């Protein structure tokens, strides 16, 4: 088996005074502007990124039209797959984004509100282009269904929506299995606690989700170094590691991370001429 582990830079994009920017935060808050989407996309395409994820984090509907233009400009720069998400509510939204140049679409809040959206979009566009994104938050009570241990305490993970602001009471592991059954081709799993900390991925969460589904899992949140990517690939069965701020801020290039993984025996694609 020679399927490689993927390294995926993620652009969180918002507009400010009509200008698109790439932002980064900590625990889904305190956003800081780190660059321009098109310039970052171009540099990641050249430095060996395996895919790119583009998440629209604008709140207002006026900005969404602008966002389609930005997606199109970013897609122009790429010869690798592009996943677009953020605020996707319907199969019409999905169709518009696919026509704009996205290859895969990530859905989150709308899928939890109406799980049949996953079935409908997988049926219309194929499972291969439907990514269900899940934002998880630790809960230390007895309302969950699947428990693990995080920082020495028993906990379960709850799905949160609307950029991490709204709790749902839904158990992440149960939802992950249901989303895969309904036709999600991949799961993109983020953690509120790990987001922006650069202290490593939320391993207990990712272990549980990987065990619960047979579709590929993209690990997100917490990557601060190549060692964190190594940890997520060796301690969990994740197929891909997503990272944002370490790349935008220039601490590491995609190539640095992949070279480090290859040196430690993790299969990655290095011949990206």
């Amino acid at each position, binding site marked *: 088996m020679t399927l490689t582990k993927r390294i995926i830079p993620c652009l969180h994009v918002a507009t400010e005074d009509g200008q698109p920017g790439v932002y980064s935060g900590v625990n889904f808050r305190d956003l800081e502007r780190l660059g321009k989407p098109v310039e970052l996309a171009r540099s990641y395409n050249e430095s060996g990124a395996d895919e790119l994820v583009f998440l629209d984090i604008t709140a207002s509907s006026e900005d969404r039209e602008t966002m389609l233009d930005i997606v199109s400009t970013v897609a122009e720069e790429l010869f690798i797959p592009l996943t677009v998400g953020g605020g996707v509510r319907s199969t019409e939204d999905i169709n518009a984004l696919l026509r704009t140049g996205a290859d895969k679409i990530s859905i989150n809040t709308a899928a939890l509100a109406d799980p049949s959206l996953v079935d409908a979009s997988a049926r219309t566009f194929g499972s*291969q282009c439907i990514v269900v994104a899940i934002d998880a938050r630790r809960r230390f009570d007895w309302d969950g269904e699947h428990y693990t241990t995080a920082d020495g305490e028993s906990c379960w993970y709850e799905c949160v929506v609307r950029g991490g602001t709204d709790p749902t009471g839904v158990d992440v592991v149960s939802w992950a299995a249901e989303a895969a059954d309904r036709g999600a081709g991949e799961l993109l799993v983020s953690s509120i606690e790990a987001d922006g900390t650069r202290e490593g991925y939320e391993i207990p969460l990712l272990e549980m989700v990987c065990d619960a589904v047979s579709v590929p899992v993209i690990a997100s949140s917490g990557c601060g170094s190549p060692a964190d990517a190594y940890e997520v690939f060796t301690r969990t069965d994740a197929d891909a590691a997503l990272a944002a701020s370490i790349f935008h801020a220039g601490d590491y290039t995609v190539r640095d991370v992949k070279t480090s993984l290859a040196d430690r025996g993790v299969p990655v694609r290095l011949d990206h001429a």
Partner: protein
Amino acid sequence: MTDETAPPLAETTVDTVDVTLVDYGLGNLGSLQRGLERVGATVNVSSDPDCLARADALVLSGVGAFAECARRLAPFRDALLDAAADTPLLGVCVGFQLLLTESTEGAPEGETVAGLDLIPGSVERLPADAVRVPHVGWNRLRLERDHPVLAGIDDGDYAYFVHSYGAPAVDRALAACNHGVEFTAMAANEAGHVLGTQFHPEKSAGLGRRLLGNFVRFAATFGD
């Protein structure tokens, strides 16, 4: 021209090739169109079966389920079969699978849906016992036979795949790949001008650009 100034093979452009992308209502045509234009093709996206005969080359894409693609492709079937007699044709992903004989995807239990049967082969679901399905990501090609579109591509190079179904063993395979099982990554008909890739060349970085460039050049000289 010295070696230093010669453009890499894949960057060489051919400005006289009209490639028609068959638009039967499914597929991410934008990426393929951009990919072909970057290697110098003039791309015409057509939803008119009568236009197929005039193209220098045809490209057939596809996303989603085989049965749905085959149903939507039905109005193009005769025109495609006619054109494929003497026009280079490249199928991508489900577009490649449609060139084969049949698929179990979307068919009732024990039955199959017919493809164009331009290349002999059957498509079935990839087993998920030991690996994750869909097969998503970059995997190595094992080259099986030589073909002009493989110029500059080496055994073991990486291509980008995203699929849940595949053709286990096709006699006319140009390249194979492994994800739990061996499957056909690329195949061509006996004459060599009808070919397809299970992976996405338009998403496969350097390898993909080289392959699309080779296909366009192959089409430019085909029949000369």
